[in-house]
Structure formats: C-alpha cells, structure tokens
C-alpha cells in the first residue's frame, strides 16, 4: 500500500501560493518554430489537464474546469546537431539546469555538454506558472525526458527510412545512429540536414526505466559551474545596457502609509529624472550614488496609521480569524469520525498551543530588475521565480497587452519562495518610461527585509486523545494564518478535525520554502512527542505504532538506525526526532543537541536525515538540497524572527537579523532511500520540515523544558 497511499493524499493547496489567471494560450504553428529556430526537428510536450491543475498551485480553483491543453516544453535539434531544450522553469540555485540537462541527455543519447537549456524567457519558452512547490522534478523533468525520447525515436525512424531497414535493429548513442549489422553510422546533424520535422509526444511515450539510467541518476557536476567560480555569470543585478540609469524609490516611513505631498525641486535640480505617480516616488540617475543623493534631497509628507507589533501578534491572529469558508475537506477543513466523542473516552488527553513568527527569506541577491522600452514594447531582466507572473503584473501596471512585454530571468541568487513577485520590475519600468533610457533597480538589503514579503506567522492549537496502549484516538488541529500546506496528519487516527483559519495578516506575507508545512509539522511532531511522553512510550515506537504508511516508516527507521536511537546520553545532551510527508517526499530528521547548563546556550550538534523522493535523479545534488534545507532550517528553528511595530520592521538588517553561519553548523548526515520503482519527485522543500520539531524534542529530552514557539531559542534557553 505504501506508494499508493502517498499518491492518494491529494496535493494540498497552499493558501499563499499564487492563484494565477487563466494560462496563456500558445498557438502551435510549425512555420513559427522553424522561422525562429532554423531547420531540424522540434518536439513539443503538451501539458495534460491533470498536470495543469496541479501546476497552478491551487488545484481546487480549477476543479471541474476543462483546461485547454498547454505546451509545457519543447526541444529543438538543429541541422548542426545542436540540442536546445526550452522550459519556463528557472534556475535559482536548485541546480535544475543540470538535472534537466541530464534528463535530456539520458533519453536523447547526446553528451550533456552539447545540450543547452533556455529557461524562463517569456518570449522563447513555453508558459510556466512558476518555479515553486517542488514541481520541477515530478513534472518538467518527466516532460523533458519524454520530448527527448520522442526526438530519439523520430531520429531512429528517419535513419531506418533512409537506410531502408528495420528501425528496431538500429542503435542511438553519442549523437549518432548506427546499424550494428551493416556498421553504418550517421550523426543526428547529418540526418536532420534540410529537414523540418515537428512532433508532439504521445501520452504513453515509453521512457528508459530508472534502473537502467546512465546519465540521469548520476552525480553529474553542474553544467555551467566554471562561470560561477570565476565570477563570470551575470545575475539579474549584474546586467547592464548602454546608456542605462540607476533607479531608486523613496520608501514610506511605515507600511500602509499614503503620500500626502513631496518637494522634489532639490532632486530635480541635480539633473535626475524624478517620477511621482500616486504613492510611487522614484528617481533615475547616471549612477547609484547620484540616485541615493537625489532621494535624500526629497522632502515628503506621509500619512501613517497605528499598527500592531509582534508582541501582540498571537492575540491578534486568534481574534481576527475568519470562519473557515470551505467545508469541503479541501485543505481548509477536514473531518472524519467523531473527535468530541473520542476525546471524552480517551485515557490520555493533551491540549497544547504552538506559535511561529514571521521570518524573512533573505535571498543573498536582493530583488533586481533592468527595464528597457522600445516604443510600447517593454523588456525586463529580473530575478523572479515566476517570469510569466511578472509579465502579467507588468502588463497590468502599464495597461499593455502581454505580447508587448518580455521578461527574462537570468539564473539568480536564490529565492526560497520569496521572489514570486515583480516589484523591482515595475519600479524599473516606470522609471525607464519617464527617463526614456534603460533603468536598473536593485533593492538594498533593508528594502528587501522590509518591502518583500514574509513567511506567515501562525498559531496552532492541538488537542488529542490516546489509549493506554499508545493508540491515538482523537486529533483536533487548528491553524490560524500560517497556512494549510502539510496540515493533514499522516498518522492513522480514526477521529480527526483539522481546520485552517484565515486571518487578515498585519504584514505582507507569501510563499516560503516548504510553506506552512514547517509550522504544521512543528506542531504535529512536537505534539506527538508530548503525547508519547504522556503515555510513557518511546517516541519512535509511539510514532510507528500509529503509522501505516510504509514509505514514511522506512525513513523513520533508516534515520533511527543511522542516528543510533536508543543510545545513552550524557548531561546536557538531548536527542529528538521529527518527520513527515510533504510535496510527495518523505523525511525523517533526528537531532542531537547540547544545552549549556550555565549559559542556556543550545547547540545543535548532529542532524541525521533520511529522505525518500522516489528514484534519485542526481544523488550529490539531492544531498546538497537536504543539507541546505537543514542549514537554512536551523535559522527558522532556533533564532530567526521579524520584529515589527507600527508598520515598521525593527530588525531589517543583516547585523540585526541572525541567519545561520559556519559556526552554527552541526554534523550533517544524510541517508538517501533510492526507490527506483517510484517516479522522482522534488526535494527542495520537504527535507526542511522535520528539523524544528526534532530540535525542540531534543531540547525537551535534554532539559525537560518544552519549547512550543518558533524560533525556539532566539536568546538561548532561559532558566525557569
């Protein structure tokens, strides 16, 4: 039942993931392809409605709607044998430029260095909702394998026809086709000379099975690694154009402020372009220093309003929760059995509350955009996980048809779910229109901390009941504001009530790596630990007793073995675990902490993760993602929190907001469970969700102190 059970749990919609408008419709005209790409072969993959609905990130809005078929990816092999694959996905550091190239190389039998990937260019690549939700591997990787396989089959058929022979006796390898019987060979380029072949992949396009992969499944090194270690790669903030100006925007003193009046004469006098348009006030100058000087010379009056602080946050979230609007069991609300009855007859009952604070993504490259107008045609280079989404925002902001807007996304300096929007693109375009020159806007770190968006804060109430033998009989779970991703329990509990409560957030909030799953797993896995303690059972034994899912059991057992669960501990030492199922992957995380009895300092000493995401596409890159999830996850678990008051961020600088550094690094051990019999899924998010509860449970194990708020120890463990 293992694989099946996981697939049966629907992809849970994420409240703060985008809900985009109808997908762009792309007309398939073969002449267009060849005018644009040159002769050769083009293979197109068409998105099925089922995948399209999932890709929207909010499947429920689309339920029952017949979606048009969409192009998802295409691949071109030119007369010169050059292979180019086109996808709307983008590279933000997850190394999909390499893993997708591996997919093409595997099926097409072309060396990986001869494959180019064109990504995230709204003019050249097919529409894509965005790069988020760990969807690239389960969808795009599969689609590119299919188009590459279809191209290989077309080439084999073409050679068979040319040689008047049986296609099944031909072999494809190293960009050429050979006939072992006659020793004839022909390379792909020669075969495609003067040809114009178009093909759409068949729904049942057969693929090489994972057990026989030669390029996929290997730790292939990064395809363009050299450009990154030499500083040659141009990130969005590095792009330049002749005659370009540097833009800067005057920021309000607080959120929700309104511009009343502004004196801009001093700024205009020094020869910069000043644009005032509603609440927008910005400048464009020949260099960034002049832009800063001009902004400082503007005197503006803003109308501000009182707003809450993070000290009042927990109360605010509870009091301002809306009634759940969606009683269909679709993520906002799920009920089975009778929770109230089961609670009243339980041997053990437990009621606890967990909280999480707003945190910032802090992508090391802040938002950046370079905009250029040619008449009413707008081109923008910008760092975003949603180039097509940014194109829509630009079209809307400037009242343009989308065809007049081109957004290009150079591989950027990370996002973690924090760059779904196009703020700098709009700002740069507005200034460029006024200045009649290209304009670049790069946010400062303080702007990124303040004017981007945050991972939602939340309050989670859990009530549970269990029998003396450790069987959980009742589970009630309420999440206020933080989101519904990962809200459902994977433990087998007969009576459940799970409700998400929407709140009008006091801060601008949005997607974040692993979304709300981090908060929901923190609450669930902490509560499991507390409940195990209540029924006097070992936390691992207690979990396994209530868990049928074989894949999840397997990661818990593998991590426990590697960790050495059950070993004795010394004073100050503590062991704990957390784990779960998210974005189709399975994770178990075991942590060892050391708590200094005098200072209260909590040090995470060792973290063991066991992860299973189907057939592994690139083992080393997968390890890199899991290690990175744990290191980044340390921040949200231990010390990251946004402090705010009256519409102002109080710690919006890197000197005030602590992120994990080298000295925070625990020993990291990763166990990969490679299931070649199960389709590959993504890994950028799931591995993060087990860490915070594992640490909290380990701190309890070390000290007897139960921590129920993230971050756990922003100032060390205070003695009670």
């Amino acid at each position, binding site marked *: 039942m293992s694989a099946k059970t996981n697939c049966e749990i629907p992809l849970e919609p994420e409240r703060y993931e985008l809900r985009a408008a109808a997908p762009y419709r792309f007309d398939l005209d073969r002449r267009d392809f060849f005018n644009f790409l040159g002769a050769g072969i083009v293979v197109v993959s068409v998105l099925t409605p089922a995948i399209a609905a999932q890709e929207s990130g909010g499947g429920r809005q689309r339920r029952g709607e017949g979606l048009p078929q969409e192009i998802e990816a295409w691949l071109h092999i030119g007369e010169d044998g050059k292979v180019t694959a086109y996808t709307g996905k983008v590279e933000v*550091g997850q190394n999909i430029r390499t893993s997708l190239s591996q997919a093409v190389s595997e099926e097409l039998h072309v060396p990986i260095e001869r494959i180019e990937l064109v990504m995230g260019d709204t003019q050249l690549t097919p529409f894509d909702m965005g790069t988020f939700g760990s969807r690239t591997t389960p969808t795009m990787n599969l689609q590119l394998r299919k188009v590459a396989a279809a191209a290989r089959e077309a080439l084999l058929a073409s050679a068979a026809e040319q040689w008047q022979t049986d296609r099944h006796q031909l072999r494809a390898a190293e960009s050429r086709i050979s006939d072992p019987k006659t020793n004839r060979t022909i390379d792909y380029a020669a075969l495609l000379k003067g040809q114009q072949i178009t093909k759409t992949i068949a729904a049942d396009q057969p693929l090489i099975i994972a057990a026989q992969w030669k390029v996929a499944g290997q730790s292939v090194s990064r395809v363009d*690694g050299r450009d990154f270690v*030499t500083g040659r790669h141009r990130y969005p903030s*590095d792009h330049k154009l002749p005659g370009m100006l540097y833009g800067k925007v005057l920021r309000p003193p607080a959120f929700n402020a309104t511009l009343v009046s502004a004196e801009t004469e001093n700024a205009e006098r020094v020869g910069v372009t000043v644009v005032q348009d509603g609440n927008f006030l910005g400048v464009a100058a020949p260099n960034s220093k002049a832009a800063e000087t001009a902004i400082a010379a503007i005197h503006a009056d803003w109308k501000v309003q009182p707003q809450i602080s993070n000290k009042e946050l927990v109360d605010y979230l509870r009091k301002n929760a809306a009634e759940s609007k969606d009683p269909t069991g679709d993520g906002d609300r799920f009920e089975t059995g009778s929770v109230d009855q089961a609670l009243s007859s339980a041997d053990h009952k437990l009621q606890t509350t967990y909280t999480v604070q707003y945190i910032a993504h802090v992508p*090391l*490259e802040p938002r950046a955009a370079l905009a250029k107008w040619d008449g009413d045609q707008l081109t923008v280079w910008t760092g975003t996980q949603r180039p097509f989404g940014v194109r829509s925002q630009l079209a809307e902001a400037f009242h343009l048809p989308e065809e007049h807007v081109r957004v290009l996304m150079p591989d950027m*300096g990370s996002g973690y779910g924090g760059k779904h929007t196009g703020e700098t693109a709009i700002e740069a375009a507005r200034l460029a229109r006024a200045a009649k020159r290209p304009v670049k806007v790069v946010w400062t770190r303080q702007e990124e901390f303040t004017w981007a968006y945050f991972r939602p804060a939340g309050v989670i109430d859990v009530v549970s009941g269990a029998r003396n033998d450790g069987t959980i009989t009742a589970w009630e779970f309420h999440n206020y504001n933080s989101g519904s991703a990962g809200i459902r329990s994977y433990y087998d509990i007969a009576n459940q009530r799970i409700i998400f409560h929407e709140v009008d957030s006091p801060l601008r909030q949005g997607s974040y790596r692993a979304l709300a799953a981090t908060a929901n797993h923190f609450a669930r896995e902490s509560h499991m630990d507390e409940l195990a303690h209540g029924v006097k059972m070992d936390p691992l034994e207690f979990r396994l007793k209530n868990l049928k899912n074989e894949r999840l059991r397997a990661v818990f057992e593998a991590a426990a073995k590697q960790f050495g669960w059950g070993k004795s501990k010394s004073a100050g030492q503590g062991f704990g675990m957390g784990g779960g199922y998210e974005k189709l992957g399975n994770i178990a995380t075991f942590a060892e902490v050391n708590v200094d009895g005098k200072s209260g300092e909590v040090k995470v000493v060792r973290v063991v993760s066991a992860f299973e995401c189907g057939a592994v596409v690139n083992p080393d890159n997968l390890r*890199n993602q899991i290690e990175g999830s744990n290191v980044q996850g340390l921040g949200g678990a231990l010390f990251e929190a946004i402090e705010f008051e009256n519409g102002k961020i109080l710690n919006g600088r890197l000197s005030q907001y602590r992120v*994990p550094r080298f000295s925070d690094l625990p020993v990291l051990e990763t166990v990969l469970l490679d299931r070649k019999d199960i389709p590959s899924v993504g890994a950028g998010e799931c591995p993060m969700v087990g860490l915070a509860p594992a640490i909290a449970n380990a701190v309890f194990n070390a000290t007897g102190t139960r921590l129920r708020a993230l971050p756990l120890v922003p100032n060390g463990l205070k003695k009670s």
Partner: protein
Amino acid sequence: MATIRLTINDKSYSVDTDPDSNLLTVLREDLDLTGSKYGCGEGQCGACTVLVDGKTQRSCITSVGSVLGKQITTIEGLVKGDRLHPVQQAFLDEAAMQCAYCTSGMIMSAVALLQQNTMPSEKEIVNFMDGNVCRCGTYPRIIRAIQRAAKAQAPAVAQGVGR
C-alpha cells in the same frame, strides 16, 4: 570628484569618482567587474569580499580613497590563463554551491585563509569564514572545498610556486 587610480588584478585603472565612494560600487558600476556581489551593504555577509594587499576586505564598506596604491584582487583576477585557482577548482570538485551568489566572496576569503594558514583545521576554517553567509546552506561543502584546496596547494607552496 577626483581621478582615482586603482590597481586591480595587476592592472591599472583610472576612475572619476569621490574618494569616499565605496569600492564595491566602483568595481561593479565603473569598471564592470561584477564578480564581487552586493549582499548587505554593512560588511555582514561577505559577498563583496576582495583582497587588499592579500588580506580580506569587505568592499561594500571600503572607500576607494583608502586603497590607493594597494594591490586589489577580485574574483576575476584568480584565473591564470585558462587555469582555475586551486580554490576555484576545489569549489567545483566539491559542488560547494547552490545559487552561488556567495561563491565569489567565499572563494576570496578562502584564498586569503590559505595564504596565511596553508593547512587550517576545520575549527580554524569555521572561525575565519564565519563572516561569509551562504543562505543556501552549503557550508559543509565549502569546508570540504577549502580542505581539498589546502591539500592541492600544499606541494606547490612547499616548492615556492603558485603564490
């Protein structure tokens, strides 16, 4: 405004700017040496790290007026001909990056570390590199890359080459 002369990667440059302009902005805007990155603007993340007379310096909080007549090395200056610096090669070999936006600064810091300590312990690496932030969390790989580079450089240093 003044004409400022800078020596960067063994080349001479003249820039018309204020002596109090920060080095990072001059590198990126005036000289198009964009390998050094802006990350925080207050010397907290290390993405802008360059070497000034062989020592690490946060170029975002360094005025150009303070580095006149000094040898400035940026990430662009490490490659010799076609050959990567051993630290660059080690970062590739250990896949010590994800988005790689921090990589230039990490490599420059690591080069400086290995110049003053040819075989640093893990603890010494952690202490020296603690001012460089990698948000993707590739720290364990960066440590391994520095250890690998140290080993690769060891014979060269002993023979007095590669300095």
